[in-house]
């Protein structure tokens, strides 16, 4: 099937970029093995796969960050040699990485012409021309960004546009977008898609790296799936369904993304929040969460979910209201008291608020409960590691060992470690903020099962999410937020997508 399509494709036109039989090895790991990727002008080609599938490695080879070990790259039919990011850009390939590589202290226009400023009389930089040219580029992509704005002050969505404008400035033939929507609001995503379509009308081949299925169905013409460094399939999007794509990505079927095992929730109130306000965002929020239930909080970007999560665990200060865990008021309002009373936060931002990246898995797991393994301040490391090993086994955390630095684990396994950190401590209420952010499909269902199990074991789970399927699949009750206020609470039975969205808009 895929071979047929490749033949058909080569008949159609000269591909903009052709990568054939690409191999890339790292010590002990085959990152890519005999991978093909063929890009047609004016088409959006989605590149999908789980973490570790090789997507990043492949685009880094395109970008000249890595050198391929074997294989051939042809650009518009001509053999190309890409040895550095500079080569890549010169040959017309522009990769917009997830972590955007602009100089935040420079203006937009300065960033666009970073590689070569046009000079005026006397060799000075022609600032007027730079600004005018920048504005013209933005006009071409149909998106308005102020060329003299300081780049760092712009939201990520606009910084992406600056990167795309840079691509046009270099007359790029291929634009690669690496997980471009991971921090965009729905509106920004729609705008980005408009711009991507504009690029295709200019004859540019777009590579769209993502693991969000709905986006891929909306924007892509063709999908290539990689798994474990191998090419699995390349098909027109029309031949795919959600199921076939997931199956290609993980190599097995997921029958039920939300394996709900729990019976009805209890009635005991584990968390009671009354009239809560914070200086920044939250206004007069009151709700209760019961032991054994998942209370899902939905809200659009900026609704205040993360702010609420941080306030109720005692991390961020509050200006009014009370929080009680199992009847005991959280006072003084700090995390120390919070953890002592039995409430903890599984943070949205694993990297900056959860993981101790350089430290080993076992130390990351035991952080919150280290005291229980100590006598007179001395750690009984044997007992500690044994306890951690139990969690590693129980949750099937994939790690080469307890001493592995946690930064080397996949997102899903890191998340399991962080959940274990709390389970080891023993909580009554766990607040989980976007629990599957940056985690791929296969691991997602495991995290869902874990959350389900937590509630099943009698914890009250407060889940902040912006993903509707996650909300409807897991929550017993749904709370909706809009601009820092609670606008609706409904039971699982009453909750429909429409009702929830209405409440979210306010």
């Amino acid at each position: 099937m895929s071979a047929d399509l490749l033949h058909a494709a080569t008949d159609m036109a000269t591909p903009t970029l052709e990568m054939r039989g690409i191999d890339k090895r790292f010590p002990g790991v085959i990152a890519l093995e005999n991978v093909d990727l063929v890009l047609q002008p004016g088409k959006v080609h989605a590149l999908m796969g789980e973490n570790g599938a090789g997507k990043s490695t492949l685009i880094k080879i395109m970008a000249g960050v890595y050198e391929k070990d074997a294989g051939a790259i042809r650009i518009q039919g001509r053999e190309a040699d890409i040895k550095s990011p500079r080569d890549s850009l010169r040959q017309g390939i522009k990769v917009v990485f997830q972590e955007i590589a602009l100089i935040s202290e420079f203006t937009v226009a300065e960033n666009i012409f970073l590689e070569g400023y046009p000079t005026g009389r006397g060799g000075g930089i022609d600032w007027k021309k730079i600004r005018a040219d920048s504005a013209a580029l933005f006009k071409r992509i149909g998106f308005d960004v102020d060329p003299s704005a300081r780049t760092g002050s712009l939201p990520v969505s606009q910084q992406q546009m600056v990167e795309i404008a840079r691509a046009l400035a270099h007359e790029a033939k291929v634009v690669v977008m690496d997980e471009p929507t991971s921090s965009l609001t729905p509106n920004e995503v729609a705008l980005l898609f408009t711009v991507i379509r504009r690029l295709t009308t200019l004859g540019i081949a777009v590579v769209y790296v993502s693991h969000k299925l709905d986006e891929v169905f909306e924007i892509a013409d063709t999908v290539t799936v990689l798994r474990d460094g191998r090419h699995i399939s390349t098909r027109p999007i029309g031949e795919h369904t959600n199921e076939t794509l997931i199956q290609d990505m993980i190599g097995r079927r997921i029958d039920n993304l939300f394996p709900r095992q729990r019976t009805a929730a209890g009635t005991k109130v584990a968390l009671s929040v009354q009239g809560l306000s914070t200086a920044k965002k939250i206004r007069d929020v009151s709700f209760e969460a019961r032991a054994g239930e998942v209370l899902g909080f939905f809200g659009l970007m900026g609704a205040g979910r993360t702010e609420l999560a941080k306030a109720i665990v005692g991390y961020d200060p509050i200006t009014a209201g009370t929080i009680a865990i199992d009847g005991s008021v959280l006072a003084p309002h700090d995390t120390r008291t919070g953890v002592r009373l039995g409430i903890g936060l599984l943070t949205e931002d694993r990297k900056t608020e959860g993981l101790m990246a350089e430290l080993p898995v076992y130390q990351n797991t035991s952080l919150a409960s280290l005291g229980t393994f100590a006598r007179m301040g001395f750690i009984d490391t044997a007992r500690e590691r044994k306890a951690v090993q139990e969690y590693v086994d129980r949750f099937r955390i994939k790690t080469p060992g307890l001493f592995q630095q946690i930064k080397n684990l996949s997102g899903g396994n890191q998340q399991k470690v962080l959940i274990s950190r709390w389970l080891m401590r023993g909580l009554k209420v766990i607040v989980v903020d976007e629990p599957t952010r940056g985690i791929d499909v296969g691991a997602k269902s495991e995290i869902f099962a874990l959350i389900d199990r937590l509630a099943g074991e009698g914890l009250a789970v407060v889940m902040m999410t912006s993903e509707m399927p996650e909300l409807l699949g897991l929550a017993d009750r749904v709370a909706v937020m809009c601009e820092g206020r609670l606008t609706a609470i409904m039971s699982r039975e009453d909750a429909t997508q429409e009702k929830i969205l209405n409440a979210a808009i306010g």
Partner: protein
Amino acid sequence: MSEIVHPSPARRLAGGRLLGSSQLVLAVILAALCIAISLAAPQFYSEANVIAILRQCALVLIVASGMTMLIITAEVDLSVGASLAFVGCIGMAVLNATHSLTLGILASLAFAGGVGLVNGLVVTRLKVNSLIGTIGMMMMLQGGVYLFTREAVQNHHQLSSFTGLGAGYVGPIPMPVIFAAAIFIIAYVTLRFTTLGRYLYAVGANEKAVRLSGLRSERLKLLAFVVTGLCVGIAGMILASLMNAGQPTAGRGFELTVIAAVILGGTSLLGGRGSLFGTLLGVLVLKVIDNGIIILGWNQDLQMVVPGVVIILASYLDIVRNKANVR
């Protein structure tokens, strides 16, 4: 975001092996230095010279033990040199006034611990960057010591127990070396085996995660500042004893030697990573270089130049070795 998992064996872990591989580079450098110097000057290995080197290491190691803890929490204290001089003057003055060694020592510990406390409060409460906050403290102390005394505070009582602090021996081993060894061992055990030690690494590795786990990250940092201060207090008294006076000009550049030794030992300025064993090697390397320059009869100004080169070189070798591990 997809990334490749490098199945590298466990290495460079906090509290991991006694000799992590980053210390290996340093151990090799140290051995090479010793061999090279002793080939050029055989008296390098004389008992007298070895003991001299150890004695010179002692003061640096005492303060570097505290500083290692502090840098592991991702903070730094640049005021230790200025504080060292001030402490000597205060201790000496109190000793003169009270004729009591105990009170003199207590006064210097209180002063130096207080300096550490203020540094810590400035950083954790006022949220001033520790680099800036402790430079401020350094300037205040450098100026302040001259407000306190224009010239060296002489020892009026000639207490033999006081002179013993710096100049005394237990068997062939100088007292300062014994103090340094004791402090080193306490610090080592703390970092390696206790919850406190583990929390210090954790705060440096990710302060927010530590706070979310219900721990008081600011208290931990504050403690590390105070411990560093107390180490300065001990070192200051030993120095005063060695000079038999409180010298306001002492300790110039001492903070750089201490921090250089800690960094050379592989402790990361970003926090969360480091080892006291590395610090010990770092101190030895710097002091062996000092000693080598003296016994080879080289220009003494090289005592600053050569360590500078060594620090850059060792950091570079560490990067090269890390890359070799990953590739």
